[in-house]
């Protein structure tokens, strides 16, 4: 479970997670929390899409030229060697997208 606190100024003021997941999903959620706290939702979404595209092998950009530099998140790249585990890394980010867009159903990576 991922919890996001988004203030009236559209900034993500807090991120927490709880539950059991594999090491990759937990690491990804942890890195997500570090990355998006303090960001506005638009920038958070840009990080999310850049990372997901990169993990899916659809881009090699880690700096999208709009001030989004993946930095620490590049640690997640190793997951590309384990195709069956890519979803573990992207799950938290899909949840972020869903939360920002106000979804009410649990998020999946499908």
């Amino acid at each position, binding site marked *: 479970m991922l919890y996001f606190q988004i203030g009236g100024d559209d900034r993500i003021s807090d991120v927490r997670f709880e539950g*059991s997941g*594999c090491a*990759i999903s937990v690491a990804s959620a942890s890195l997500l929390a570090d990355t998006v706290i303090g960001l506005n939702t638009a920038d958070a979404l840009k990080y999310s899409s850049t990372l997901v595209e990169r993990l899916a092998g659809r881009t090699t950009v880690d700096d999208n030229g709009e001030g989004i530099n993946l930095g620490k998140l590049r640690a997640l790249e190793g997951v590309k060697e384990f195709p069956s*585990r890519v979803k*573990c890394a992207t799950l938290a980010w899909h949840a972020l997208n869903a939360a920002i867009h106000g979804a009410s159903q649990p998020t999946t990576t499908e």
Partner: protein
Amino acid sequence: MNKHNIKLPDRVDRIVDIANCRADFPAFSQEINGHPLTYLDSAASSQQPAIVIDTVAEYQRHDHANVHRGVHELSHRATEAYEDARDSIGTFVNAASRREVIYTSGTTESINLVAQSFCRPTLKRGDKILITHLEHHSNIVPWQLVCEQTGAELLVAPIDQQGQVDLDTLLALLDEKVKILTITHVSNALGTVLPLRKIIAEAHRRDIPVLIDGAQAVPHMPIDVQDLDCDFYAFSGHKMFGPTGIGILYGKEAHLEKMPPYQGGGDMILEVKFDGTTYNELPYKFEAGTPNISGAVGLGTAVDYLQSLGMDRISKYENELLAYLTKQLQTVDGIRLIGTATQKASVQSFLLEDIHAHDLGTILDRQGVAVRTGHHCAMPIMDFYGIPGTVRASLALYNNKQDIDALVEGLGEAKEIFSG
């Protein structure tokens, strides 16, 4: 020798050592990530011996044509191969007649066939279908579908912490509203072996027919459907060293005779007219369209291969290996065995400390050890234990003690990685 002049392995020198059979399986001559392949995932799908692979290839090279319809030589060869395989398979499970042996695409289709063709026509609101908490999704969802379609109710017999079915409750649930009891022979997630003869006898005392999901049983022990007296028995080729895409539904002739067809099409008819079509006799009534002929040939060959080894000997060998697996796993500090019934076959699920099953599986894969991780298509069992999934090691006749040692060593690696 089988009809394709492919020699079955010489059994004389194999009388005492099932473990030597590993050499019959080409998959084991490869390395995975720099390690010999340790394949402990036969419950998901088994490896095929060279004779199955070669016989299928020979069929495709020299004997292929469509079955049942042609007057030419190749069509005769194909039909003979297909029907001879049916006879071998029928003998393997001791079906009373070849009319009771239906080819399907696998256990899942077999079960759907029974749900739609045996149950659905007469099921009504207030009727019940009884399964157990051990069932694989393939023996749950077809019944949920038919219950939605008819208004019938699905009941579930509970299990205990060891993964055994609560027999008293199961028997108590067998009342006059239950129209079918459909249960697994061996649990794919926990390895539990159900006491089928007793359960079937009790169900029959109450006139309740019984379908058995035998997918995880047929590769590991002798099956005698007449001795079990089950009404239907379903299993898959790819779990028993045959190809994917082929399986069997055994059904008592009296039932199959009365059941309407499952799928319509060619071959399951005698005569087609727009003002009325008559259906073919058994077993063809339930085999619409061009079948998976090469799959059937492969399954028949797999059956011949198993018969040459003897299911009793395979069963004895695997039981000893399972005892070793259980014992060795218990030497790993922090191991939690899941599925500890007194009667088990082939399978041991486990967790290690609080390491997620997928992580264990990935680390083991790096050592060439193939196990399955997750819910094993048995989510209700995972819910029962309150866990997202397990690591499952499953044994087949080609496994040996070194495989188990490699698994335990891999678990040691995993502990190291996660203890840092």
